[in-house]
């Protein structure tokens, strides 16, 4: 009797029960999804850290081999080999530290393709600029083919780099001054209000062979010049942001400082604040990343640190200089 009655009654959920279940599932998924995304971002950040570390070690190994740091970003340099030497040097637009470090992060084949007798944007070097060197791209940032060099000549369509050298503290006026710890520091900046602005005080700043520049002509930096201490000096950082407007400011990864560079930037503005204005701040573009809250830097001692975008500018500038002797330490 009982079983008969039961079988006759249709068993089903009421609408309310269903809604409650859906609401609970919704809340649970809402909690879980961001957590999964955060785990993915944490993994990408670790991968990015690893790549910065490899590049830092490559720079150290370059120093061990050559007794000096690689030239940061070259302006006008003597071609090698130069048929006209030494009577009438014939200068060409140079390249940057990443190319010099290639053999030290297992890219010897790419390095051997680079033609040092011509400019970076010569057709002979187009094959280098087009080469995909996987370890130059932050996995959180735009893919290697998202933003390619829009300029003409051999660099057209070249890929860019997300890892860039630190040129040092700068401003759109020279000398750049800032107050840290109650003391005022001042350092010269070359072409401060132009795209090719470069600070004198950073580790991977301009190098040139042409005479007439106190800070960059035949510049040579060794560990002994990093007198702020390698643990307190920024060496490389990342810029791997998606651009908000239509103005593409990523350039070929083999470009030196020839009217602006893709491979080093000044520390002028806060992290994640500044993109290219289309006219004169190319080298003042800020460091930044898609990692939430800041970006990562390779420190001169070989460690890699995440620096928050809310760091005080005076401290960031102090860390970017290698020889102004600020009492500045990386925040924990």
């Amino acid at each position, binding site marked *: 009797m009982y079983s008969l009655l039961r079988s006759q009654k249709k068993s089903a959920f*009421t*609408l*309310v029960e269903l*809604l*409650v279940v*859906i*609401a609970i599932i*919704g*809340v649970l998924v*809402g909690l879980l999804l*961001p957590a999964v995304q955060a785990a993915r971002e944490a993994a990408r950040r670790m991968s990015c850290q690893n790549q910065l570390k490899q590049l830092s070690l490559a720079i150290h190994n370059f120093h061990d081999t050559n007794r000096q740091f690689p030239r940061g970003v070259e302006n006008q340099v003597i071609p090698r080999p130069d048929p006209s030497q030494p009577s009438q040097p014939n200068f060409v*637009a140079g390249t940057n530290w990443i190319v010099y470090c290639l053999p030290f992060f297992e890219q010897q084949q790419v390095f051997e393709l680079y033609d040092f007798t011509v400019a970076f944007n010569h057709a002979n070097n187009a094959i280098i600029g087009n080469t995909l060197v996987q370890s130059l791209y932050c996995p959180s940032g735009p893919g290697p083919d998202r933003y390619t060099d829009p*300029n*003409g000549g051999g660099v057209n369509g070249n890929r860019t780099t997300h890892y860039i050298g630190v040129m040092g503290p700068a*401003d*759109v*006026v*020279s*000398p750049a001054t*800032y*107050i*840290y710890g109650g003391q005022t520091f*001042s*350092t*010269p*900046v*070359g*072409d*401060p*209000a132009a*795209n*090719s602005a470069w600070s*004198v005080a950073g580790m991977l700043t301009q190098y040139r062979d042409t005479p007439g*520049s*106190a*800070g960059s002509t035949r510049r040579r930096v060794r560990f002994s*010049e990093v*007198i702020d201490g390698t643990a307190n000096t920024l060496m490389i950082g990342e810029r791997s942001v998606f651009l*908000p407007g239509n103005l593409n400011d990523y*350039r070929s990864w083999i470009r030196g400082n*020839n*009217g*602006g560079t893709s491979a080093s930037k000044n520390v002028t*503005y*806060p992290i994640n*604040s*500044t993109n290219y*204005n*289309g*006219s*004169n*701040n*190319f080298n003042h573009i800020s460091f930044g990343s898609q990692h939430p809250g800041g970006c990562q830097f390779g420190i001169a001692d070989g460690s890699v640190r995440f620096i928050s*975008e*809310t760091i*005080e*500018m*005076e401290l960031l500038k102090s860390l970017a200089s290698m*020889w102004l*002797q600020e009492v500045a330490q990386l925040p924990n």
Partner: protein
Amino acid sequence: MQITLRRKSIRFGILFTLIAVLQCGCGSKGDRVTGTVSFKGSPVPRGKVYFAPDVSKGHQGAAGYADIIDGVYDTALEGSRGIVAGPMVVTVEGMDPNPAPAASGEGAEDVVSTLLFAGYKMEADIPPGGFKLDIEVPDSAAGVPKSEPESAGMVIP
């Protein structure tokens, strides 16, 4: 009675879900500053305003910044950051995207906008809780600030 109770439960369920959804994605980014920027009597088409805490007056903290779009800036917009209220050094940069200047020399391809002024600095004391600061850039700020040559003051330890 049964029906009203059900309706209440449905309403409650919907409200609950809405709150759960809306809960995510709200955060504060410092004190807000907004206002207009004008130069030579007309609004500045594009540019950037930076707010740096005035260290010489004992103020410290993260810098704020905002984009100028058609003469107006607002640190509460996307791509901006609010400030830490107090005495500030305000740096303004103004651009005119049209027409593109005729540039020459290396890197000329990269120049697509005209610079109105760069590195114009002023001081302002900004109270917390939202503030309207209208900036009138003087004609004398046109171009770029005067710099010493790079070799001046060069001290290599």
